[in-house]
């Protein structure tokens, strides 16, 4: 009897030890341009809460400078990084290709892609070297903001100064492609440049319209071109082994389960932009742009432009194929679906 109670006590002790070990908080560096009161941070708090149900505790640390968050993660100060895919591309090129130019033209297609990525079948793509993707959240489509609403064709961008994130190689390539002038910027200063009109155009999600006061730059004569240039996402990158693979899969499913809620917020931002500020472009032009974007993606995948010159190899071919399949399921008659050089 006594032996039994001793064994039970030992088991209880072991159980409580393993419990406390399992629930040790994982330091998580979270980038949000406005810190802990920002949407991205709030979204992460919901994610962290949901993860508690799977025995994972995240200790969120806000960073308003994405490069600092990245540096902290790289130096080992935190084991999980939450940042835009433009920054996390280096840890996983497959998921980092989600924001490829013009690759996901609608939010319905984005949802399909997200569902695929949260499935068990995609798990192998989520691990790359020492890192694993634990979740992907939409941040909204990036749109072209122009100071002059007559800039509504790609040809009009020739010679125009375009605020371009200096670490975003695909964007730099795209600006060069349309013969625009690259104005190197970062997330913290492109809004100011657009508003004081030291640039003619900038690209950003709808969220920036109010948060970065881009309405000042848009003013009466500017506008926002109603065409999603790219789908920006926030990605949760963990050092491999921080959570086991089963939990990692659960984490991705948790992130996907939050998709609709996140999209509601994004839609609210887009609806908050006055109708008069949007610039619509004709359907026939859209077809041409889609082909232009496609050519760009292929070049950025192969690392070679149409003249055989070397360019940055930014995009992952498997992801581009997945995105092409999703587009072609939505629009099977598109010429790209039967093109010999389809992605």
């Amino acid at each position: 009897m006594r032996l039994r109670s001793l064994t039970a006590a030992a088991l209880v002790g072991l159980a409580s030890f393993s419990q406390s070990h399992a629930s040790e908080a994982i330091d998580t560096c979270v980038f949000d341009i406005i810190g802990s009161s920002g949407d991205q941070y709030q979204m992460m708090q919901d994610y962290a809460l949901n993860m508690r149900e799977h025995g994972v505790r995240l200790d969120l640390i806000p960073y308003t400078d994405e490069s600092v968050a990245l540096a902290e993660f790289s130096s080992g100060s935190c084991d999980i990084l939450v940042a835009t895919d433009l920054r996390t591309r280096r840890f996983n090129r497959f998921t980092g290709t989600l924001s490829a130019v013009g690759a996901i033209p609608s939010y319905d297609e984005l949802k399909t892609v997200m569902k695929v990525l949260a499935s068990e079948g995609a798990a192998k793509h989520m691990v790359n070297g020492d890192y694993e993707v634990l979740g992907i959240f939409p941040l909204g489509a990036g749109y072209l903001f122009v100071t002059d609403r007559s800039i509504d064709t790609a040809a009009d961008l020739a010679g125009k100064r375009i605020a371009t994130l200096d670490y975003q190689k695909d964007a730099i390539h795209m600006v060069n492609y349309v013969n625009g002038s690259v104005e190197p910027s970062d997330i913290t200063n492109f809004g100011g440049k657009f508003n004081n009109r030291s640039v003619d155009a900038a690209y950003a999600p709808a969220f920036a319209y109010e948060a970065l006061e881009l309405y000042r730059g848009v003013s009466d004569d500017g506008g926002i071109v109603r065409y999603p240039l790219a789908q920006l996402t926030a990605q949760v990158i963990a050092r491999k082994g921080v959570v086991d693979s089963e939990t990692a899969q659960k984490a991705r499913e948790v992130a996907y389960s939050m998709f609709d809620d996140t999209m509601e917020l994004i839609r609210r931002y887009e609806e908050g932009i006055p109708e008069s500020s949007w610039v619509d472009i004709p359907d026939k032009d859209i077809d041409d742009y889609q082909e232009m974007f496609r050519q760009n993606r292929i070049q950025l995948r192969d690392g070679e432009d149409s003249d055989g010159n070397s360019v940055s190899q930014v995009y992952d071919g498997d992801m581009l194929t997945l995105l092409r399949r999703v587009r072609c399921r939505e629009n099977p008659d598109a010429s790209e679906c039967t093109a010999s050089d389809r992605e």
Partner: protein
Amino acid sequence: MFKPLQLLPSRSLRPVLVALVASLFVAGCGIHPIYTPTGQVLSGYGESHATPYVLEMDDIGMACSLGESLDPLLYSFKRVKANPETTGSLLQVLAGICAEREAVEEELRYLRAEHKNDLSGMRDARNAMQRKYGATANRRLKAFNRGMTAFRFDPASQVEELDCPCYRNDQDELTFMMALLSGAQAVLDDAKAGGRAGVSRSLAPQVERAAACLDSEKWGGLPGNIRAVIWVLLPDTRPDDDLDPWAVMKANREVAMAAGMRTAMALELVMAENVGRTETVAEVLAFLAESEERFVVRPEYQLVDLVGMEVALFVSDRIWTDRYGYRTPSNRFGRISDEQEQDESINTEGLL
């Protein structure tokens, strides 16, 4: 020589004045030459300006605080015969909202404790909840009684023939309706309070009869639903045995939408929750969430609509807390389950 009598009015006026002063004192009911007119002015201002202003408000918390803080001041003028019944009724309606908010918080605490199997927590929360619902029922009973007094309507004596009040304007109708709604709510609240407020159950049939004095369509189906919830509680009060109160309330959903005031649906929800009609609760919550985009509020009675929506949220919160231990998460209003909807419409086969 000093002639004090010269300060008094002429001999002919003197008896009139004496009679007037005497009548003030003889009345013995506290009519005061300054306070009484002040009360009448305040009461008049309350009816003409403050009430319409408050009914347009979109801040429920501020409106209910106003009811709590202003009622003792305004209604104290009853002591000097200033007749503040109409505004006094509405102030108690507002104060009832504050009390209900507190009661619901305790009710949610009870449900959370139950979810955690925390027995002492459950007992404590239940006691607190009953006290708060008792206070809510008290306020709503006052709102009902004052409303009836304001319109000189004796609900107990209207059994054989209905002698409806004369309304001067829409605000009068609304005030009468809110008083009746408070009467119905007082009965329900007192039940949750374990009978602490001692609200007579006979109020229910009285309210049912009196609600026929209002045009249901004009008021977004609310008078009709006040009657219908009482038909559910007391089936004998139905004018026709074949009348299905749930069908009446279902039909009133679109009536409420058209009138720009969804409060009737809150009543349907509360009653459905009361009798355990989970499908009806789910249906109404889903309807409210889905119809949000097409709904256009009647601006002059925005507060009434919002209070109804808050009650709907309370119902939703109780269901969520009962099931999961937490209140309705953001973006889940309209659903009573946290289970993920299957994205069957999205076929991901062969994409990867």
